[in-house]
């Protein structure tokens, strides 16, 4: 944690010019629901929004045993609304060729169910939704890769999007610049597994396995993973490609292909990214100051226990901030609580902190 404190100081200094004219808003909390128990626990622990996906390739967490059918979606919606929370349906993969009708049916169903908003990535689907369900609220998925206000404003002009989720590539100063130059409320990631690449523009997973977030809603899919033990050595392979090799006593992690150790110029290291996850809680005041509308928690593939812990802690942090913005600091028990459920051993501020780049 020592190094985090140092980098934060740098970041505070760096960002002072950003918050010259504070807008002061309290960000909403958007939490993941991989299934009905997760959804209920997210709502119970204070999520303002819960987001979920259907049991098919129309969403970017198309994992076995995960997601909702019509009955559980209906029950989830009833539960969320009864508690004053809202529900989002992620339809954030890209239909290929002439396959759009299946995704369009998902949009029709969302509108019929009374889902509060759909998260879309594909422009053709946005056009369909705007034409056929003009009352349905549209959120721009992170998979849309809209990293600048020209792009976001374009989607706004054409499809009337109500919110945009930013890819995890911008520094906080750049996020502030986007917020200043768009009428579209902005949502950013606050916590969870970290994509190093611009979301929606990464084909690394399909290069290795044939399936990517854009095409199948998966990254480094479990069915392509193979563990091989040779004496004390444990190899993690993805469709045969060695993603990492662990010596005795080393903690082995899931072989997400951008988070392994590779050789570059005879040097073996985490050439793309360490197996770390994002935790931007310390930036909550800056996020509020620059006018961020909502903070998103990653992790529809995680357990209800994860959802409960992360939602509870972020709710407490946002409420503490709202009560007394000037005195906000990250409590030690929040940090340790988040560390217990985080993937990997390390936390990072990711691209919000310029030095990460």
């Amino acid at each position, binding site marked *: 944690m020592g190094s985090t404190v140092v980098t934060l100081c740098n970041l505070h200094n760096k960002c002072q010019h950003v918050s010259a004219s504070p807008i002061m808003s309290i960000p909403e909390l958007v939490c993941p629901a991989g299934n009905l128990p997760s959804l209920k626990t997210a709502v119970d622990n204070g999520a303002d929004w819960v987001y979920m996906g259907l049991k098919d390739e129309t969403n970017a967490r198309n994992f076995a045993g995960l997601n909702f059918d019509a009955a559980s979606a209906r029950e989830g919606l009833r539960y969320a609304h009864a508690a004053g929370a809202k529900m989002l349906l992620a339809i954030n993969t890209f239909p290929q060729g*002439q396959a*759009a009708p299946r995704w369009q049916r998902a949009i029709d169903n969302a509108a019929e169910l009374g889902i509060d908003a759909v998260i879309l990535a*594909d422009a*053709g689907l946005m056009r369909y939704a705007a034409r056929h369900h003009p009352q349905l609220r549209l959120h721009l998925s992170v998979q849309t890769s809209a990293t600048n*206000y020209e792009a976001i404003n374009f989607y706004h002009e054409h499809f009337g999007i109500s919110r945009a989720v930013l890819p995890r590539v911008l520094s906080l100063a750049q996020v502030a610049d986007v917020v200043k130059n768009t009428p579209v409320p902005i949502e950013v990631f606050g916590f969870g597994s970290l994509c190093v690449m611009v979301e929606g523009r990464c084909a690394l997973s399909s*290069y290795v396995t044939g399936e990517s977030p854009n095409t199948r809603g998966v990254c480094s899919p479990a069915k392509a993973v193979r563990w091989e033990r040779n004496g004390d050595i444990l190899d993690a392979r993805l469709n045969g*490609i060695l993603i990492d090799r662990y010596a005795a006593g080393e903690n082995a992690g899931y072989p997400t292909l951008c988070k392994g150790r*590779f050789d*570059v110029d005879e040097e073996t290291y985490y050439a793309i990214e360490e197996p770390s996850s994002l935790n931007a809680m310390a930036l909550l005041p800056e996020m509020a100051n620059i006018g961020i509308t909502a903070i998103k928690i990653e992790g529809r593939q995680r357990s209800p226990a994860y959802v409960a812990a992360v939602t509870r802690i972020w709710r407490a942090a946002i409420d503490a901030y709202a009560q007394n913005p000037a005195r906000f600091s990250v409590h030690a028990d929040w940090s340790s609580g988040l560390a217990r459920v985080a993937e990997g051993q390390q936390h990072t501020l990711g691209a919000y902190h310029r030095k990460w780049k």
Partner: protein
Amino acid sequence: MKLSLGPVLYYWTREATMQFYAGVADSGVDIVYLGEVVCSRRHNLRLDDWLGLARDLTANGKQVVLSSQALIESESDLKTLRRIAANGDFTVEANEMGAVRLLAGRVPFVAGPHLNIYNNETLAWFAELGAIRYVLPLELARDTLRELQASRPAAMQGEVFVYGRMPLAFSARCFTARHHDLPKDDCQFRCLDDADGLALRTRDKEPFLTLNGIQTQSALVYDLSDSIEELRRFEVDVVRISPQSRNMPEIIASFRERCAGRPGTSLEGLRVAPPCNGYWYGLPGMEYRTAH
């Protein structure tokens, strides 16, 4: 079927770049995409230099298209983008939606490979916006291309990336600077050291990826040279080859022959790495299947 040369994705010295395009002027390519697509810090050629090159190549009978940067993060990126969009002389290839906003309804444009045109509905929207050509996203298979081509809007041209290391991902992080333990803001332009990118191997020494600044490419060279007839049957208008630092005249000549329906000379020994073509067949992109 026309032959295009994609933008140089690597960072070369000014001299090397100028020399490269002097060769391109006399080559058999019909269309040349110019500009810095990967990193705004690269400055051996400024926009005015690219425009000068564009005029020279046009004088040599090439159609020139200016390619926009694939990842726009800052106001200064947008400033350059606005100048490219408003250049007035040359068609622009939009590589993200900010560029599309600046071009749509104003001038005809090319919808680049990073715009995620995966289906016919999205393609139809791009036609309404004024796109005259779309480039198939790299990870899509021939079956998808067939469907897109079969229902493509009137006058919409199709272009397919058929040769070169594939740009697979973009990040805010510079992996070349990271390798040299340098901050991105003080990268010392170390990507100049690697004319074809920096090789990343697995720990069992298998070539896997290529680091090119903020871009990650395949280690293998995508090669659809044996599928040109099939592309013609799909009524693809343009096939694109992506520059590498050596053997380009021979590679261009081979594709020129193939585009004319003749068997081109073999690319064996000309590629910077072994071939792959898995995406074309709906397989993992790194795989290779012989066409015959």
